[in-house]
């Protein structure tokens, strides 16, 4: 696979141009990052309209605050940090909806059962797979996306206290399995 980044302007220089009011640079940045941002946002939220709103707000925010990027870390990570928070805002504006279809809870065995069923020592991947979707969603929001308890609670549509207890339970289960 070719590496387009060697012949094309870097994300950092594009952001500098966007900060200076270059609309074309914003478009290049969008073509580069919008696809993976949409896919990743769509994994966090089943409401396609909310995802589109979040993506739109993200690039409007990039246009207005490109100057606030100070080169600490990858531009992709910076963009994701904006996008996930814009998604949370988009969800806040809408009525509560279910996240990661709650009905699976009754169909699937509980996390504890899953752990008991798959007793053999597994890698992290297997351990994550055996967590219930609810616990996995909390792990994804708090660890992978780096959200605060409050932000995770809005994204997942559950109380902040539940985020905390689920995160604790998930960590405990993972620790047990990986021990």
């Amino acid at each position, binding site marked *: *696979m070719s590496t387009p980044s060697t012949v094309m302007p870097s994300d950092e220089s594009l952001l500098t141009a966007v900060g200076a009011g270059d609309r074309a640079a914003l478009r290049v940045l*969008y073509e580069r990052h*919008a*696809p993976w941002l949409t896919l990743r946002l769509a*994994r966090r939220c089943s409401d396609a309209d909310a995802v*589109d709103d979040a993506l739109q707000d993200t690039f*409007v925010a990039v*246009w207005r605050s490109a100057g606030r990027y100070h080169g600490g870390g990858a531009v992709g990570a910076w963009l994701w940090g904006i996008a996930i928070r814009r998604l949370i805002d988009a969800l806040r504006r809408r009525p509560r909806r279910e996240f990661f279809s709650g009905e699976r809870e009754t169909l699937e065995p509980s996390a504890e059962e899953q752990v008991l069923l798959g007793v053999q020592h597994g890698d992290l991947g297997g351990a994550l*797979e055996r967590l219930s979707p609810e616990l996995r969603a909390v792990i994804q929001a708090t660890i992978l996306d780096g959200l605060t308890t409050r932000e995770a609670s809005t994204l997942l549509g559950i109380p902040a206290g539940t985020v905390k207890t689920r995160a604790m339970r998930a960590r405990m289960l993972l620790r047990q399995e990986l021990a």
Partner: protein
Amino acid sequence: MSTHVDPDLLCAYAAGEIDAAHAFSVEAHVVRCPTCQAAVAPLADPARLDRVLAAVEDELDAPRVGAIERVLRGLGVRADLARLLAATPSLSLSWLSSVALALSFSVLAAHHGDGGMLLFLCLAALLPMAGVAVSFARALDPTFEIAVAAPFSSVRLLLLRATAALATTIAMAGLAAVALPGIGWSAVAWAVPSLALTLASLALATYVAPLTAFAIVTAAWLATVLVNATASDDVLAIFGRPAQLVLVALGAGAALVLARRIDRLDVRGDL
């Protein structure tokens, strides 16, 4: 990271047919890998991405909604009406702040005796009419051409704007009156004169050009106040009960004239 994500795995990720552990590692890699970001690009729905990009550009091109327009929309005013109202010169921040400044100085003066109180009452009675006058002034209206061409009766728009200007100015004068020394009759004594003056000027505007009408009424009012203050022992007699009754009668008469001759109102303005 030396190795890139396997293309099949990327496809499975994009389709949502992937287990959590793999999804986590795909995401952790893609967020900082330009090559894999480019590889993901064809997997997203291009029509949808184009639509969102168009929405982004629309939002960036749209004029920023001003503070007053946001307040009006928040109060449930229709968006098009809010824009026309917010463009009223006498609702602009510069006008409102000058009204506030004038009122604060006259309140300060009112703390230094009857002369100051007379200044406050005289000013508070005049300002609402001035607000209405400014909404007539085409040279001050950035949307004059648009307002004339709007599918909206010009007289109706003018009266709407005048009402909005009147309401805000009266509200501001009322707020200022709270800061007067010893709240009593004097705190509201300007209200009847201000309404009477506004109505009188609008009634007169059905005969002569609006700004001429405002100038005549202002001059007449100032002359009356001054003559009264020098001739009478009580400088505030003009705001006393008998004078208020005369002003009520004047206002009612003006309202009658205005109602009968409203179609003669010269909405084109001058200046």
